């Protein structure tokens, strides 16, 4: 039988039952590979449930550093009878299927184009452990040990990692190492090691780190000086505030008093959470909230208020698959329009699109500067894929000289010295006005914040002209905002071409890989990664330079493309869509396939008709 052969280049998928502690064992595996200097990209695929349902952990190992989803499984390691049929089906021909053969495999599942490897995990556990919980936990560690032998991993890396992971919990180190050894031993004794796929020490990760975007965001908020966090639990954004809290507990305790230099409130719902963030920002603290899915809809009324009353507001939206409750544990980039035009009436909201943990950290911290400088909500748009998976990333860094940009705030001294203050008076001509913090001055500088129309001195008015002037100033402000948000990043392919791709957020890795593989077929395209809305002029120029631009996004309705069309004055014939919305991160194969289909001229129907008649994404 053919068998896949490769070194440092494969996809392995673990199939487990959730609530059994498999995630940490699988993580041990991924991190060990990473420590061997090989780029990895693990993705946790978990159900919206706590215990007993199938869960998967897909790890891509790739020496060339492609970190997006590739599509296809080379090795499946399945310890979950519920999903075994599906797991074995997904293996590429020539691939490997590793399973717990304490119970024999159902013969109907057998595939003769796949290499089947049995390890009697349950049996080993039952022999070694009496406690049922231990049996369950160590089973996972044992298969990691076995994998080390099968893939020719450096066993010392694994044992060192265990030491690091249980630092402070010494008692746990030895039993875990023992379990690793059990698996390792078994494989070396009973199985053909290594298999065709294996790993070798490499040097491709440099000083990179392995970190999930939500933790990076929480750290970004911490470094950005956030003192108030108000939130309501929801997957996949919950861990943003949890990370913020974890680190705040370490570094934000006043050494003298033991008191906290931060406040975190679990609100009663998302309406309240964003209300709190707005109230705190209004009162001069840096505040944020984080949410996902339905939370975004619930926050829309307040987002409209913050836009119109110009209150700095930071919202981290970790997107998941919608609409409604949708697929709460799957990824998508489908809140683009809901956020860009959040709330009734004419609004335009600022969006940031990080694509790595490093950018989550940077943009996370920057959000507060932007919110206060621009006096408007800043919505940072990440997603489950980036937020909840360990992503390889540049290390985090902070310039210790950096000062927070607190924006335009008038002080008591300035008021005292007779500065004219009108809350909505465009003094500097950039359409951004000065504010005062409550409590600034006994008799000067007070104003009334409201969601109703008002004049430049914040006095209530129903005069159409005053309302209109204010709305037009907000439009002018949009141009100022444009100058402050992070610019796009362009990759020139170095050849003459009139075709390009444009993407944002987590489509980056797969897009880059797809471009490389298209280049290998002599299809050359320039690329731009957009990092913010409003779109910088560069975006417009980039699109204008090309005859066709593929907009890659992870939603059904090409929402980002709609935004590009609404903001610029060129025809949609230029903008073609590459979409994936089945809840999995878009893969390089999928992008390549869709682009080639377009280039072959398959795409002449109007967009929505077309999508309806073909399947846009691939689920594999």
């Amino acid at each position, binding site marked *: 039988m053919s068998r896949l052969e490769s070194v440092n280049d494969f996809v392995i998928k673990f199939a487990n039952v959730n609530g059994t502690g498999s995630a940490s064992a699988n993580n041990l595996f991924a991190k060990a590979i990473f*420590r061997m200097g090989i780029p990895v990209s693990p993705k946790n695929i978990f159900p919206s449930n706590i215990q007993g349902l199938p869960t998967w952990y897909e790890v891509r190992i790739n020496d060339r550093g492609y970190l997006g989803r590739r599509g296809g499984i080379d090795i499946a390691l399945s310890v979950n009878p519920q999903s075994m049929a599906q797991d074995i089906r997904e293996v590429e021909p020539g691939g490997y299927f590793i399973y717990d053969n304490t119970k024999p495999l159902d013969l109907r599942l057998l595939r003769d184009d796949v290499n089947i490897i049995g390890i009697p995990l349950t049996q080993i556990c039952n022999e070694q452990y009496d406690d049922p919980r231990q049996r369950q936990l160590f089973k996972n560690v044992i298969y990691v040990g076995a994998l080390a032998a099968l893939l020719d991993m450096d066993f010392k890396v694994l044992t060192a990692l265990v030491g690091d992971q249980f630092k402070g919990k010494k008692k746990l180190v030895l039993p875990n190492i023992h379990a690793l050894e059990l698996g390792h031993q078994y494989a070396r004794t009973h199985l053909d090691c290594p298999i065709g796929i294996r790993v070798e020490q490499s040097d491709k990760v440099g*000083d*990179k*780190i392995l*970190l999930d975007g939500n933790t990076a965001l929480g750290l970004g908020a*911490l*470094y950005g*000086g956030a*003192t*108030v966090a108000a939130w309501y639990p929801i997957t996949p954004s919950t861990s943003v505030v949890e990370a913020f809290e974890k680190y705040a507990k370490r*570094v934000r305790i*006043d050494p003298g*008093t033991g*008191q*906290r*230099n*931060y*406040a975190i*409130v679990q*609100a009663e719902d998302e*309406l*309240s959470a964003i*209300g*709190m963030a*707005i*109230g*705190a920002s*209004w*009162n001069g*603290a840096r*505040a944020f909230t984080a949410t996902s899915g339905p939370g975004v809809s619930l926050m829309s*009324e307040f987002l409209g*208020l913050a836009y119109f009353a110009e209150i700095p507001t930071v919202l981290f939206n970790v997107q998941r698959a919608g609409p409604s409750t949708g697929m709460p544990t799957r990824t998508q980039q489908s809140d683009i329009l809901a956020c860009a035009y959040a709330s009734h009436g004419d609004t335009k909201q600022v969006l940031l699109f990080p694509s790595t943990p490093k950018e989550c950290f940077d943009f996370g911290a920057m959000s507060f500067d932007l919110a206060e400088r621009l006096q408007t909500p800043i919505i940072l748009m990440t997603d489950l894929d980036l937020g909840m998976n360990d992503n390889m990333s540049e*290390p*985090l*860094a*902070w310039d*210790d000289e*950096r*000062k*927070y940009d607190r924006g335009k705030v008038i002080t008591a001294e300035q008021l005292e010295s007779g500065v004219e203050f*009108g*809350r909505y008076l465009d003094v500097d001509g950039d359409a951004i006005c000065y504010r*005062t*913090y*409550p*409590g600034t001055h*006994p*008799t000067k500088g*007070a*104003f*009334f*914040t*409201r*969601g*109703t129309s008002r004049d430049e*001195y*914040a*006095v*209530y008015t129903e005069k159409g002209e005053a309302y209109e002037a204010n709305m037009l100033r907000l439009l002018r402000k949009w141009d100022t905002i444009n100058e402050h948000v992070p610019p796009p990043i362009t990759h020139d392919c170095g050849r003459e071409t009139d075709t390009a791709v444009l993407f944002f957020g987590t489509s980056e890795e797969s897009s880059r890989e797809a471009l490389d593989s298209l280049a290998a077929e002599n299809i050359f395209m320039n690329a731009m990664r957009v990092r913010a809305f409003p779109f910088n002029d560069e975006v417009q120029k980039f699109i204008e330079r090309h005859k066709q631009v593929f907009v890659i996004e992870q939603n059904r309705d090409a929402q980002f493309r709609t935004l590009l069309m609404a903001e610029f004055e060129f025809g949609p014939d230029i903008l073609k869509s590459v979409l994936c919305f089945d809840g999995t991160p878009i893969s390089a194969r999928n992008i390549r396939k869709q682009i080639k289909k377009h280039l072959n001229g398959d795409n002449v129907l109007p967009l929505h008709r077309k999508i309806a008649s073909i399947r846009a994404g691939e689920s594999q």
Partner: protein
Amino acid sequence: MSYQVPKFRHPGLPLNELGYTKADYEGAISTLCAGCGHDSISGAIVRACHEMSIEPHKIAKLSGIGCSSKAPTYFLGNSHGFNAVHGRMPSVVTGAALANRELLYMGVSGDGDTASIGMGQFAHAARRNLNMVYIVMNNGCYGLTKGQDSATADRGSATKKGDPNIYSAIDLCGTALQMGATFVARSFSGDKEQLVPLIKAAISHRGFALIDVVSPCVTFNNNPQSTKSYEFVREHSEATGTIDFVPLKKEITAEYQAGQSYEVTMHDGSSIHLYKVDETLDPFDRRSAISTLEEHRYTGNILTGLIYMNKDSRDLHEVMDTSQRPLNQLDEADLCPGNKMLLNINASLR
């Protein structure tokens, strides 16, 4: 800045300790209907703040949407104000209070704003014992949208144009007690002598202080079939007692009769004196407060005055153990752990 009401300052007007006249605590001219109860409450707030010599800019006044929620524009013109969205004032106050624990938060709301759309936020602000004064201008109807029944309308009560209300009424005092509020009082817009000291006590209290003020809507709900009309309330209210507020450092001059009179020292050092009328109520015992309230509900009387106060109240900041320095005054040095820690974090992630 935003208040351009020309103020004629009579030279002989009484000054408070800070040297301010009452006019310094006033706001823009009211646009509410002539005779609206809400304006009287605004007046009581002005008087309480003036008499307590609170620096006007150390007050933040916040509200939702409604005639009642417009009121903050009409008092405390030197304080920052915030008209939030309908029913969501409590969350905005929560955030504001977290940001700066040193201001006094004066929340104003309506019965629609609080008991309907705002029920959740109201309940949870009370539960968290947020340090604020929460005044409901309760007229049993939706004034600004022209007189629909609100959730505090009594069963059988009818507004000017409406049918008798068919639903059971929500008692905001009872609700606040259930939720864990630490100061609960009820009053009547027409009774300034009771209302002003209650507001003062609420201000001095550290924690969530609700004053549910029955405040007739003259335009839509002051008719004979209404149980929130001036006449009905005058006839059916029963006070728990009278209350006297004695500011910090003031010597107690009046003679207080022992037995029915209680002196209570507030967190800020001021004190209140209570003269009880209703012997069954012990306003420092939640059980007593809850059952007395329910008893009055049963008999159809409106219990006014201080209904409950928790003398050991610990507010949100205290239970959260947040820094004494307001969070909005912390800077980079306090907040940013610096690059060194990142180096450690990075190392742990390899």
